[in-house]
């Protein structure tokens, strides 16, 4: 084991880690937006909405993320431009693919969260005179959020780990940068070991943070 290369290549770990975190945050945000839409479609009474939402979820969950990412990269052809040194023509399709993927899982999390709210809550709200939408907004969703948030935290952890797949379309996240270092220093093992530790520290501290937040939320009940 020889970690002397770090003096020359530490930068790639740092920038890769930062990019991985940025990608994960964007993915979770977009995934929640997509997932909420799909979940609402799935629990609606409109047959077409239901069918679209179900096909979406089934298709995404039935195909590998790797395939989806490659497919999106070739489908979304963007002119090249850079923001903060990131190649947007790769970064954008990559984040979209990750979000579309995560959205399907988030949709199921949200649907389950909504359906776990007692049916009586919706009935009580409707009996006061709230419309379906108002009842959702004021009564059901705020309660569903307590079921949803912990599961969303787990999805965040999953996204951090799965974003390593983006290295196949050469987005300079942590895994891609690890490959770059491996290729440059003729030593394959050490960079990989460091990267494993970084991923673990990221997900472990996030899990602890979420556990703490969850306990706080429960005691405020």
């Amino acid at each position, binding site marked *: 084991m020889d970690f*002397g290369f770090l003096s*020359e290549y530490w930068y790639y770990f740092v920038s890769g880690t930062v990019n991985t975190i940025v990608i994960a945050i964007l993915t979770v945000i977009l995934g929640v937006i997509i997932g909420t839409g799909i979940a609402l479609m799935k629990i609606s009474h409109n047959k077409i909405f239901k069918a679209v939402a179900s096909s979406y979820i089934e298709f995404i969950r039935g195909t590998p993320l790797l395939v989806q990412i490659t497919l999106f990269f070739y489908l979304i052809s963007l002119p090249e431009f850079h923001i903060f040194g990131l190649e947007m023509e790769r970064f954008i399709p990559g984040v979209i693919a990750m979000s579309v993927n995560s959205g399907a899982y988030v949709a199921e999390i949200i649907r389950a969260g909504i359906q776990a709210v007692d049916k009586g809550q919706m009935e009580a709200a409707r009996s006061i005179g709230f419309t379906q939408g108002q009842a959702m907004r004021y009564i059901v969703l705020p309660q569903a959020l307590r079921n949803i948030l912990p599961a969303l935290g787990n999805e965040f952890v999953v996204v951090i780990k799965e974003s390593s797949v983006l290295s196949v379309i*050469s987005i300079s996240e942590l895994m891609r940068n690890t490959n*770059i*270092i491996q*290729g440059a220093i*003729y*030593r394959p*093992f050490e960079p990989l070991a460091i990267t494993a530790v970084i991923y673990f520290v990221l997900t472990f501290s996030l899990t602890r943070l979420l556990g703490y937040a969850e306990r706080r939320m429960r005691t405020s009940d």
Partner: protein
Amino acid sequence: MMKGMLKRIFCLIIVVTIGISIAGCGGGETMKRIEKTGKLVVGTSGDYAPYEYHMLVDGKDTIVGIDISIAEEIAKDMGVQLQIVDTDFNGLLSSLNTNKVDIVIAGMNPDEKRKKSVDFSKIYYEAKQGVMVRAEDKDKYKTVADLKDKKVGAQLGTTQEKIVKEQLEGANLVSLGKIPDLVMELKNKKIDALVVELPVASGYVKNNNDLALTDVPVKDDTGGSAIAVKKGNSNLVEQINKSLDRLMKDGLIDKFVQEANEKNVTK
């Protein structure tokens, strides 16, 4: 529902295929584009030292290596700026054919299969191929016959893969996408030998005491590395060949190889 979905997927595939084939037409357009933008966009795969690899130069992430030095010279001859695009090796030729890059320099061998989808310049560097093994096994492998029934690694979709199949009779091929992964397998005794280009192999041997080069003779039919250009751009190929002739005549390419090897040795 299932039927509708299949239909949609089908449409998608057709649209993609048509898109790619339309992008494949047109003549001399790459040269026109380079002249218009004043920029030569070079696609490469920056994890293949010493041909191309990343380094911090004055604190900035930069791709350097033999191929990059050559690309700089070509851009200089054309009087345009150079821009490097770093992609996975497997995606390079489709980047070329979808006009995401103008040319590809990535230590690429002009084999028959690739010649079907793109055109190549003349060969700029005749790399020899080497068989790398664990240092402790160096004495065991002297001839092609010694590799019989052994597991021999090569990078997926490369000339080396072909060499294992055609020249190493009785060897079992193990293909992986990335050379570092293959090296790891070699070190962990999951494979017994590894066919790589000599400049790459010597980099690994220099940096890893437990690796060694054998004298097992393998030869390269394709002759070395060349620059890929989208089909129908003979004027661009000519321009590149002119630059390559100059570099070879002045012995600059050998100098680049030497430079890259020196720069790259970390200790």
